[in-house]
């Protein structure tokens, strides 16, 4: 492996959680696609908020509330610049990717979907990019169409083209598969969809912490992601939407913040982005996300990407040396995820033993049952990297894989 592409292990000092042991073994955390750990910079930012300026925002005339409001809105501006959106009003704070998708499925669905219309998704989506559309279809009488997968777990692009009919009102597709790490050709898919006047929603949950995302360059209509998968807190996520499109969508949740005037006969709604942020927002989490963006930028996404790719290449190479593993949907250019099955050993058995060696990996269907069905499997074992993982941790994983095989085979 190319050592010069690796980040220093000094980074780990920013993540006290990683210094723990479980079952008397040092923790090896390789479930970053599920959630990432939070650096002290993020924890301190959130702690600082609660210790110094906790107050409800957008309404107080006193100094603390003004400062809390300023920091919350600064976080929104930071997100805007991080994904290169045109306007700060295009950044809606949500609880996470799932809520972002639900918001669009509800509001866009109400405005644009009806009987005979179609929503196009793909066979590799996370349940969070399937079920909201099924609900929207049930409400509106539209139907759900699915781009099938090829046997190598990638999208069948020929079928994709043929599914872009005049009935399709929206394409919703994941940027990166949470199961295989496959990076979809979303540039081409967005252009192809736009050629048919079909807006596109991108589920970016697995992308934003691993590669530079530029929503203007992509020209997607919606882009959704979570803070907690990019070293930020849980409970904060982002919906990016093009201003003109967001502006004509109806609100989805009612309450404080999102209103302009309320009378019992008629309520008018606030402007973007507040129209979609009913209730007291997650201020501390937004400030934590701001700190996480700073943290990621201080290292640099290019360096993070190179680091994770080096780890991925090393793991795959060494597993091939051991032999007896089947990689699921592994392709050159995949993101920092490796899904595999072990010959003769169930992933649940393997995962249980790895846990005893302090190794945290994910097993099961990864909230993507249709993908499992398409591949004819019940689940996989998934290793997913973050910026703090080290080569030595992969050696620990490889050692545990060898020992587990000896136990079962």
């Amino acid at each position: 492996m190319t050592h010069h592409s690796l980040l220093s292990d000094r980074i780990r000092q920013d993540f006290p959680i990683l210094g723990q042991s479980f079952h008397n073994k040092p923790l090896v955390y390789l479930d970053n696609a599920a959630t990432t750990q939070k650096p002290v910079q993020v924890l301190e930012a959130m702690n600082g908020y609660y210790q110094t300026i906790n107050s409800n925002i957008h309404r107080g005339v006193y100094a603390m509330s003004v400062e809390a409001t300023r920091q919350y809105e600064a976080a929104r501006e930071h997100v805007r610049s991080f994904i290169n959106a045109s306007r700060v009003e295009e950044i809606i704070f949500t609880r996470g990717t799932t809520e972002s998708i639900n918001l669009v499925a509800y509001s866009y669905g109400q405005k644009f979907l009806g009987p005979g219309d179609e929503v196009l998704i793909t066979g590799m989506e996370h349940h969070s990019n399937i079920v909201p559309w099924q609900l929207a279809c049930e409400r509106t009488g539209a139907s759900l169409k699915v781009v099938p997968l090829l046997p190598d777990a990638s999208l069948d692009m020929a079928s994709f083209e043929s599914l872009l009919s005049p009935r399709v009102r929206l394409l919703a597709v994941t940027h990166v598969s949470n199961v295989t790490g496959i990076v979809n050709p979303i540039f081409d898919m967005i252009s192809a969809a736009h050629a048919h006047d079909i807006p596109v929603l991108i589920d970016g949950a697995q992308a934003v912490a691993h590669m530079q995302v530029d929503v203007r360059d992509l020209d997607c209509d919606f882009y959704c992601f979570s803070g907690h998968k990019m070293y930020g807190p849980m409970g904060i996520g982002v919906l990016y939407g093009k201003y003109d499109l967001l502006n004509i969508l109806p609100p989805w949740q009612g309450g404080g913040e999102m209103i302009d005037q309320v009378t019992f006969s008629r309520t008018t709604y606030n402007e973007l982005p507040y129209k979609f942020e009913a209730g007291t927002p997650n201020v501390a989490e937004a400030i934590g996300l701001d700190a996480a963006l700073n943290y990621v930028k201080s290292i640099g996404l290019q360096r993070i990407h190179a680091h994770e790719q080096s780890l991925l290449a090393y793991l795959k190479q060494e597993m091939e040396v051991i032999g007896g593993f089947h990689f699921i949907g592994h392709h050159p250019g995949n993101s920092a995820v490796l899904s595999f099955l072990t010959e003769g050993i169930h992933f649940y058995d393997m995962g249980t033993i790895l846990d005893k060696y302090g190794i945290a990996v994910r097993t099961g269907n990864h909230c993507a049952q249709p993908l499992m069905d398409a591949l004819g499997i019940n689940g996989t074992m998934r290793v997913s990297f973050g910026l703090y993982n080290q080569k030595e941790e992969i050696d620990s994983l490889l050692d545990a894989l060898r020992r587990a095989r000896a136990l079962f085979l």
Partner: protein
Amino acid sequence: MKTIQEIAAEMEREFGAFEDWMDKYNYLIEMGKSVPMIDSQYRTDAYLIKGCQSRVWLQAELEGGRVVFRADSDAVITRGIAAMLIRVFSGQTTQDIISADTSFIDRIGLQEHLSPTRSNGLLSMLKQMKLFALAFQARESSKGQN
């Protein structure tokens, strides 16, 4: 015939003798090999305990007033856990199964399989066994009334 508590105490002693988890798991894996295997006709969705980890098939019959369990799983450790539960509960009366104290599971030290999120783990198997016993009991008592 030993009671549920007697067998549970016996197993607690067996597991207690192991010094490290590796021996414990080896024993569990060995137990899995001796599980009364479910007949292939029952390895269907109707007998499947669903979840996102391993799959377990569990089937029960009432034989001479006692419940006989058979199971299988695609994962070896899960099969071992099934074997453990079958050793305790198979051959017992419906009432004893329904009212059984299951705290021995904690004491054996397989807590990691007790998490409710491991929906194919111990807890769902245990629940399904008690449900089988309840169903048999209900059937018997309705026969008695007729």
